[in-house]
């Protein structure tokens, strides 16, 4: 896990503790974290070259903040991997990841359910980054 040349990851999460933990894990993996705690804060950060992957909480100031951000990121550069972290499925009974390839409209590459396991996040990032850069 050494030379990642400090790959930047945008993390948007409104829970300060989840943010802190995500930072600790990702930084320990050698990533650099660009953080925002609201959709509003995150929007101006979406610029070409600002980050190479994004991890987004789904429900922030709006119930679909994560989707909106994901959509904007994909519109800017559809190769940037986006992971949406959510607990929405379990709590509301809404299923959006199995039924009919909803990734098409959600426009995220992976959806991870909270209670997020950081190993899972790590693995997803690695998989998606690897796919993008064509190595590893």
């Amino acid at each position, binding site marked *: 896990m050494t030379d990642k040349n400090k790959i930047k990851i945008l993390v948007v999460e*409104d*829970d300060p503790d989840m943010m802190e*933990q995500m930072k600790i894990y990702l930084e*320990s993996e050698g990533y650099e974290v660009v953080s925002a705690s609201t959709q509003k804060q995150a929007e101006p950060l979406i610029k070409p070259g600002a980050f190479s992957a994004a991890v987004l909480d789904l429900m922030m100031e709006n119930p679909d903040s994560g989707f909106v951000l994901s959509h904007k990121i994909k519109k800017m550069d559809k190769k940037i991997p986006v992971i949406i972290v959510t607990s929405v499925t379990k*709590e509301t009974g809404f299923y959006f990841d199995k039924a009919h390839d909803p990734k098409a409209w959600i426009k995220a590459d992976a959806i991870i359910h909270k209670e997020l396991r950081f190993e899972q996040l790590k693995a997803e990032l690695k998989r998606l980054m690897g796919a993008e850069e064509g190595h590893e």
Partner: protein
Amino acid sequence: MSDQLPAQRLDVLIVDDEEGMREGAARSLEGFSVPLPDFGETVAFSVRSAATGGEALEQLGAKTPDIVLLDYKLPDMTGIDVLTSAPAAGDFLTIMITAFASLEVAVNATKRGAFDFLAKPFTPEELRATISKAARSIYLHRKARRLEEEKRQVRFEFISVLAHELKSPLAAVEGYMHLMKERMKGPELEAYDSMIERSVVRIGGMRKLVLDLLDLTRLESGKKKRLLEPVDLVKAAGLAIEAVTPLAEAKKVTLELKAPPGLLITADPGEMDMILSNLLTNAVKYNKEGGRAVLELAAGAGGGVSITCSDTGIGMTETELAKLFGEFVRMKNEHTRNIDGSGLGLSILKKVVKLYGGEVRVKSQYGEGSSFELTLKDASVPASGAEPALKA
């Protein structure tokens, strides 16, 4: 007034082998309408008819009526047989028509859901009276079903959000535990102080949520034991201010009380403290550093008291104001993300204030501050001291 109520039609099916009977009944209901001012509607009737049990079943199969006027003695079967084999039985209301009203028939028909009986021969007035009663019953049922459905929906949403609010702190603490277990910050315990500190804060928030939830449940069930006595609000305010002072000092918020020397209200002291603490805590939590919070108590214009709590805090936008009293609503913006709370405080406040015949008015200016104004009347002491017995 009732003439202008919008008209709805109930579908009536008349089942009788006598043609005169069918036509007479249809004529009686033609142009007849029942005003239902409680529901804001007037009900008129459209009539279909069937001469035999077979025809009746056919009609019932084609479209479920709202009301069935059903003769007991039909050429091919009895009215009971029709009810037994009717599709969607129970979805319509049955009025049995009998020439020889016998107890046995009545019991049998009632068992199969007959709503009422008409003994032959009956006058058009009797028919209309029975139909009016049936229409009212149908509307009451529909209303009850609608309310039940709404209640279920609200409950479902409440529980979903509650689960979310309880899981967030759990996930945060669990996450820190994992980090510590994996010694992510090295072997020194001090390196983990902030994680431990945050875990304690989140668990505290969770405890507050559970306690608020219990308060809210007790208020809603009406099972909360109330102890009504003369309460000096000024004294109660003093205590509430004392309790919130550490929080205020930490945020460098000045607390100020403007009140007459004493102000009595017949109330439950615990409920008064809930109101005052709630107002003060919000005024401090949603304030800016170095801000001010003023609690004003005064005798109300028409008896009772008025309480105003204003702050120089972060204020709310109009959109935020509109959502303010919802359960678990916590204003999420860049100013509030480090403010903890259960999101139930104002729901509780509103419910308690309602117990005193009052209401909560809020004025707010984004970036400038908010002001909560409420009026309370003396709580009335229950007449015969009838505290509802607790069920074991």
